């Protein structure tokens, strides 16, 4: 898959016509892969909901918050009270890592991917 | 005739406001008998009938589509019906190629004073569609699509 870049902005997606696997085809997510890149709605900083309001936070704070809550819920209600949804916008490797984290660390098989929605 | 099989076709008629719609009025007003299978849709010129309207009509279950406009040279918008005259044969070809008999689409010119012609055109076309039978798209249409488009209609 190729991204069309014009003046430093990603403007379009093209399939790789001579790729041995995709043979020039893309699905609708692939064809629109460029759209989220410059989207205004993109999350660029961690936000934590404090008293009902999304508040900007540092990465360290956000990560320890998430880790703490996950551990709390797991300890209190058991690992199967957790579920993880991964994304088509991540790489294969990121999705793999999340799978590992879910099964080996959280201890649940509740993991799915948005492409199956 | 095959009328005895009880099949009454649904025909969508796109009638130009300035001629055939008035022609239909005249036919009714002068108590001409004609087949009641055509559901008329008034358009401002036969040239505004896009191929999309025609195929949508078929998709929603029409057995036939009739387009009528002013005679060539008499279009209210000068050359609107030139477009119709060029476009309809192309639409027919495409319908035929994807498997919908081109005979299910008909174009004719009917002026406001031709009440009698309107009655004849409608009756003849209804007979033809009756002999062709129900549209093969009926029942084949993607179920969910049908529900949705009817709900939004």
């Amino acid at each position, binding site marked *: 898959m190729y991204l069309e870049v014009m003046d430093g902005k990603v403007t379009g997606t093209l399939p790789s016509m*001579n790729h041995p696997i995709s043979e020039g085809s893309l699905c609708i997510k692939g*064809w629109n892969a460029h759209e989220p890149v410059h989207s205004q709605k993109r999350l660029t900083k961690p936000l934590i909901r404090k008293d009902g309001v999304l508040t900007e936070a540092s990465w360290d704070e956000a990560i320890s918050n998430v880790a703490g809550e996950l551990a709390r819920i797991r300890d209190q209600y058991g690992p199967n009270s957790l579920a993880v949804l991964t994304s088509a916008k991540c790489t294969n490797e990121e999705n793999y890592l999340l799978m590992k984290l879910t099964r080996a660390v959280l201890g649940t098989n509740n993991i799915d991917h948005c492409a199956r929605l | 005739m095959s009328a005895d099989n009880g099949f009454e076709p649904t025909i969508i008629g796109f009638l130009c406001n300035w001629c055939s719609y008035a022609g239909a009025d005249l036919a009714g007003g002068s108590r001409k008998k004609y087949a009641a299978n055509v559901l008329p849709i008034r358009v401002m010129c036969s040239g505004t009938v896009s191929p999309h309207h025609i195929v949508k009509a078929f998709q929603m279950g029409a057995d036939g589509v009739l387009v009528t406009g002013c005679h*060539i040279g008499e279009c209210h918008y000068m050359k609107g019906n030139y477009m119709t005259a060029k476009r309809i044969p192309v639409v027919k070809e495409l319908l035929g190629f994807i498997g919908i008999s081109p005979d299910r689409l008909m174009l004719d010119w009917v002026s406001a004073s031709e009440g009698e012609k309107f009655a004849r055109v409608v009756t003849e076309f209804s007979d033809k569609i009756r002999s062709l039978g129900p549209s093969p798209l009926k029942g084949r249409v993607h179920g969910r699509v049908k529900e949705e488009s009817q709900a939004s209609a």
Partner: protein
Amino acid sequence: MEELKKKVKQALEEGKIHGFLGLKADEGDISPFFMTKDNIAELEKLTAPDGRYSLGKILSRIAAQNPGKAIGVMVRGCDERAIIELTKASQLGTASTVQFGVACTPQTAEKCNCPQPYPSTIDFGEKAKSVNHGELLTKLEQMSVEDRLAYWMAQFDKCIKCYGCRNICPVCYCQECTLEDKNLVPGGIVPPATPVFHFIKAMHMADRCIDCGLCEATCPSNIPLRTIYRHMRKVMQELFDYVPGRAADDKSPLGTLEEGGRLIH
């Protein structure tokens, strides 16, 4: 190829063209690329491979960013036909093109089933013979209308609505696409409204398709789209003697209000 590179380089250096659009090979990967004088080293990778892209479509986007400028572009037979159509539809704005013609090899022509595998002026390569495999078209034309419906319904049912056929098509340029009209093609449903989706596409291609075959090449469901559009090209030729991509001063009979073809009186 060296000759061609030299020509392009010269045109860039003399300022005859502002930039150049072509195909390059990067470790075996073929992709389109656009370059200006500032990154002239890129030119070394210029190639005329088997793989193809919609250069015409990319050109129209570059043209929009560079009004009034001259853009160099590598053109094959199909690219030239596409640029003719885009010019007719005013999609290149005020930019002008300087075309560097590349004739395809007989192998490429065969692979693309190309009706004219060379542009009008050739700067690289030799004219290969036209290819015209139309077995499927002939077979379909000889079928009964019922069999044709069964055939196409089965094909259209495979469509995953990726819009790839539209996205890749060099002559699909509308800002607002009828295929995204929710009244005609309701959202969230696959396959998309059958046969409305494919009917609309075919109708829009009737007077525009330049028979490059990219739609069929990109379709993940292997729907023989090109066969429909080839049929439409035939219809346009028979009814109106109109062939898209033939000449920039041709006017589409479906795009003008003029008299044309056989008017039914």
